[in-house]
């Protein structure tokens, strides 16, 4: 009885989660611009999507910002984590709480505050004839800023588990600091670095709010593109886009899940 009830509950949540996605996928094949009717099967929205230069450039921007911001945030986060690890407890707590601000604060406030600082910086630089152009650079800075806490917090716990004696032993045996770090510490914390990078990458892919406030008029990521298109009135290309994104996430997760399964099997 209990088992049946829990099965029913699982099924209920499953339908609730997937019905909307199924509808999106269905409509991406609908041969009618108004959603009111089913006009037969078509792939034309997919063709139009790939021919739509603004969607394609938004896709490129999204991927570029995600990869670059995740890389920068992982590098800065790694350096900060190593440094924080050798700090005294009190100082570490103060810095860690500053790190947490963008994670705990509302995205809209973070976005607005970044917009204000870029405008302020632009006004400041204009005295010397420079300026701040809202676009790729400002969006990238925004993404690194909200990614940083996640990379630091993924790497820190791994770093604290590292046995300092092995690091010191390596240096006693003549390794330089850099070599000892690379050969002894880095392999131990690699899983933390990778998960921090992946987390930053996916957060950046999905972000809308920060991008909305830090982008300029000519620059779009997929999220901001979807936002403007939906507000204009939905275009079926957006359905095609969601289907493709959903399928690629699915494929990535299956590949990733398999690799992980093999790892644990070992």
């Amino acid at each position, binding site marked *: 009885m209990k088992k049946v009830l829990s099965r029913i509950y699982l099924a209920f949540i499953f339908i609730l989660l997937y019905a909307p996605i199924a509808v999106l996928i269905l409509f991406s094949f609908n041969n009618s611009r108004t959603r009111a009717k089913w006009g037969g099967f078509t792939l034309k929205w997919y063709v139009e999507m790939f021919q739509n230069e603004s969607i394609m450039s938004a896709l490129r921007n999204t991927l570029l910002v995600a990869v670059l911001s995740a890389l920068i945030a992982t590098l800065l986060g790694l350096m900060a984590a190593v*440094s924080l690890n050798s700090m005294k407890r009190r100082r570490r707590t103060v810095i860690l709480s500053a790190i947490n601000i963008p994670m705990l604060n509302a*995205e809209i406030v973070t976005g607005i505050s970044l917009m204000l600082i870029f405008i302020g910086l632009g006004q400041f630089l204009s005295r010397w004839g420079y300026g701040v152009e809202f676009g790729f650079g400002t969006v990238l800075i925004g993404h*690194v800023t909200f990614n940083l806490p996640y990379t630091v917090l993924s790497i820190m716990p791994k770093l604290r588990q590292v046995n300092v004696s092995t690091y010191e032993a390596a240096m006693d045996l003549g390794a330089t600091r850099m070599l000892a770090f690379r050969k002894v510490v880095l392999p131990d914390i690699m899983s933390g670095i990778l998960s921090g990078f992946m987390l930053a990458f996916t957060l950046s892919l*999905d972000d809308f709010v920060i991008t909305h406030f830090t982008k300029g008029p000519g620059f779009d990521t997929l999220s901001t593109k979807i936002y403007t298109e939906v507000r204009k009135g939905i275009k079926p290309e957006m359905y095609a886009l969601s289907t493709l994104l959903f399928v690629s996430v699915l494929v990535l997760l299956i590949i990733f899940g398999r690799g992980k399964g093999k790892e644990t099997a070992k």
Partner: protein
Amino acid sequence: MKRRNLALSGPYLVWTAAFIIIPLLMIVYYGLTDSTGAFTWSNIAQMGTPERMKALVLSLILSLIATAICLIMAYPLALILSHMKAGATGFIVTIFIIPMWMNSLLRILAWQTLLERNGVINQILTFLHLPKLYLINTPYAIALGMIYDFLPFMLLPIYNALEKIDQNVVNAAYDLGANRFQTFWKVIFPLTIPGVISGITMVFVPALTTFVISDFLGGSKVLLIGNVIERQFTQVGDWNVGSGLSLVLMVFILISMAVMQHYDKGIGEGVVL
């Protein structure tokens, strides 16, 4: 050696100061000054207009409802998932997490498609010769969107907390004569409170401050505080008032976090004692 390690955090500290601390101080500055730069409380008082108060109260109500429903839905789900056999769990948990990996705007777009005047739900109703329902552009639609968008954020921390529980502790409770309900209420639930707390914060804050969900599912008819602030910056262009309103919003976020932290600590100490 210590000193060189400290220097490593240099770029990070500069970044934090330049793009986290100073920007927040700028909101405080703009929020407390007028266009000439003179100190004023009037931007904060702007929250008091009837239209904005209505948006703020509605945001608070909807985000509280969404958080409560997410908790009620996610806890049993997490319990069921944590009881599954080891092999099946990974796969089934993944199924419930996948929607989270989809772009959140597209997930809300999906609900718009379902709820619209000529949307899927109303089409089905018409097909069954039932009257159409007015679903979109209502507060209910927004609450539904919040629940759908943020449910995984509630599920994951609770599930992780349940997974971490040492099965021996649960068995000990049974050995000492506790029944299922007592075991759950006295042992399992207290151990998952940190997960519940982080789930609540991860749902409440984004729900309180969203403007996308209300844009897509509320049309321009139902405004949340997020919409009011967003318009102040992108359409009206009055940064002083916008910052003043943001300051008020931040106060609510800080209060909710203080409350959460208080509960988290109290329970943690109780367990240790």
